[in-house]
């Protein structure tokens, strides 16, 4: 039996093949295309890291000074900045291929005990001083530029910064644990706006700004994350408690795909989450050997896919490569 059209003659087999194409081949092709375009959506963007290097000292001359309890790392494509907390100094290394140069020591009397560090787009350095509980601003030349003291702050004027973040426009976000809010400041420290902490929370330890400039807060004691988008006036939960997969998250970062990396201080590991807060995997483990972590404090990820971790109780900084 023949089916006749104006153009060609088709057998029943031809129609069956067409139907098969539509039913099986097209969805597969569409799926493959979707995977190529959105790999993280297809396979949850599982994260893996490879250990590259461990930094044990300032690498200076014949008598390098070892790192002591480093609690902070900041980075960009060309630079690694370490808060060598136990030695009360900052160390700035230039990144070269898979290695680093000797460090330039930044030690100013206004900075006594650096904890978290961040670098803005112009190479300015910001660090939280644990003893003074103030954010210290240091210029790219390594000179003290002043403290970040918000100007034009509405009531209450008291604030205590526990952590801070810097967005792509160099605006500064301060996690103010005293008045339970996030303060948004211009790069020169003028007050822009504030967002109150959510009603119920344990203890917020860290703040970060993701690739969409959404603000994320880390509640360490409840092991959960809340977020507020750029214009929001309140925070809403990203995750429920992550206690099953993490012990005590102390800090976190977000990458250009929206994945979140939590630094588990007590568990000695990094935990990766998807943009929606779903668990992607555990990176590294607790230990003393290279590649393992012991009470890590802060992490930083640069655009070249290098992950730097302040491995505090191991007195070193470790450099990993994100495997895509």
């Amino acid at each position, binding site marked *: 039996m023949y089916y006749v059209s104006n153009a060609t003659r088709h057998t029943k087999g031809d129609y069956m093949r067409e139907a098969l194409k539509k039913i099986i081949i097209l969805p597969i092709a569409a799926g493959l295309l979707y995977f190529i375009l959105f790999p993280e959506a297809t396979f949850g963007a599982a994260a893996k890291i490879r250990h590259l290097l461990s930094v*044990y*000292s300032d690498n200076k001359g014949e008598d390098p000074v*070892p*790192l002591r*309890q480093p609690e902070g790392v900041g980075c960009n494509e060309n630079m690694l900045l370490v808060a060598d*907390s136990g030695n009360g100094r900052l160390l700035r290394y230039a990144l070269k291929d898979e290695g680093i140069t000797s460090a330039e020591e930044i030690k100013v009397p206004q900075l006594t*005990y650096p904890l978290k560090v961040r670098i803005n787009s112009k190479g300015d350095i910001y660090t939280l001083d*644990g*003893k003074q*509980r103030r954010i210290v601003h240091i210029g790219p030349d390594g000179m003290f530029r002043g403290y970040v003291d918000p100007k034009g702050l509405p009531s*209450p004027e*008291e604030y*205590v910064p*526990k952590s801070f973040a810097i967005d792509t426009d160099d605006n500064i976000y301060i996690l103010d*644990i*005293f*008045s*339970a809010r996030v303060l948004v400041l211009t790069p020169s420290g003028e007050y822009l706006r504030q967002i109150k902490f959510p009603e119920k929370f*344990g*203890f917020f*330890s860290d703040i970060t700004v993701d690739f969409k400039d959404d603000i994320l807060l880390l509640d*360490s*004691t409840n092991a959960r994350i809340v977020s507020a988008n750029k214009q929001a006036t309140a925070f809403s939960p990203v995750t429920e408690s992550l*206690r099953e997969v993490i*012990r*005590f998250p102390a800090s976190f970062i977000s990458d250009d795909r929206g994945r979140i990396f939590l630094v588990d201080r*007590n*568990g000695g590991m990094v935990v990766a989450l998807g943009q929606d807060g779903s668990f992607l995997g555990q990176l590294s483990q*607790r*230990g*003393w*050997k*290279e590649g393992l972590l012991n*009470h890590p404090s802060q992490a930083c990820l640069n655009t070249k896919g290098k992950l730097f971790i302040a491995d*505090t*109780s*191991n*007195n*070193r900084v470790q450099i990993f490569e994100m495997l895509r």
Partner: protein
Amino acid sequence: MKHYEMSLQFKGCILILVVSALIIAAPAYSENTFKLKPGAGSAICIECHETIQETLKRPYVHSPMKKGECNGCHNPHTSPFGKLLNNDINVLCSECHKNIIPEKSRSIHAVVIEGNCISCHDPHASDNQFVLLKKGNELCVDCHKDLTDVSAKAEFKHEPVEKKKGCLNCHNPHASADAPFLLIKEATVLCKECHRTDEKRFADRHMNYPVANSQCTSCHNPHGSGNRGIIFDGVHTPVAKKECDKCHEGPSSSTPLKAIKDGVELCRSCHSEMINEMYSKAHLHWPLVDNTGCLHCHSPHASRQKMLLKGSIVNLCGECHSDTVRLQEISINNPENTKLCKPVKERDCISCHAPHSSDGPLLATGKSFSFETCDKCHDWQTHSTHPIGEKVIDTRNKNLIVDCLSCHLACGTGNKPAMMPYESTYVLCVQCHEAYKR
């Protein structure tokens, strides 16, 4: 047609007769089947279980026993549960006593959650109402000796504790839908059932501050105390001296209960020396400088704990550091885990950690979390023949020396032995001595 109708009526009669006969005959049939002796399930049981005969003479008998239904709870032949019970003891009681726990309970007695009803009730019979094992407060003493001791020794007693119903005057023994601590009602409501807050005497005693709706138990010990007004034995000096305005705005203020300063700054007015020292250290316990400050751990008025703490050390630390406290718990509850540090066993976190601030990492009481901290209890230099000390570099990490924390984790390691982070000494040793790896 008529013949057919009669036949239908006839058949209907037969059907009714057969069904009736079956109904009447069914028990007889089943009795015949099991061939039970008269009194099976009750009287026969007692023939062998003689002590039960005596028990049943008591004035309060559990209803299944009263009805002679031993098999209400026990299987006469076999059972996977102890004492030939029909079900797990934790479930069995709730099969009949379904409404013991209100749907949205705010507090539930631990033994009720465990289903351990026989801790308080005799399942057969008792001399006490509700088949309770003991009378009144005597029953509560067995588990809550710390509280009943306070009441017994208190110079100033709280009347309801001593009254006939004792603890049950304020507490529900099973669960409370309305209040914490198994209280029948919220403490503020409950107290006002006996104490008039609208009298001048009440205002005078409270320095004219409007505390009628405040939490009475933030100052008063409901179980009795050595202080007049049953104020907790541990009392903050300004409270003892009735100097409320040292911390609060005046009683005539529009916000009289508001503190005059926020957070740690309020406490600094008197405890400046301590707080200045705290600030001088490299590591601060960060909750101290948020808006709650010292009150995360300390009660501003009075407390049954030393140092005006709000609770036991481990409970306070565990509110935020539940992960570590959980590890401790596992270590302690493992009977094979015999080599535990005393502070871990006693759950005394502040033996090793400074709760306010420290120059050492992780708020260690010493400058390091090893020799200086462990030295308080351990003579580490005689600990083993393994090289240890400032001059011995850890082969795993050139920036570390071999110290106590090279082999042990100080807060407990769950089920791993001797506070080691690995499951055996062998696994620990081959971390460094790789040549001996099997």
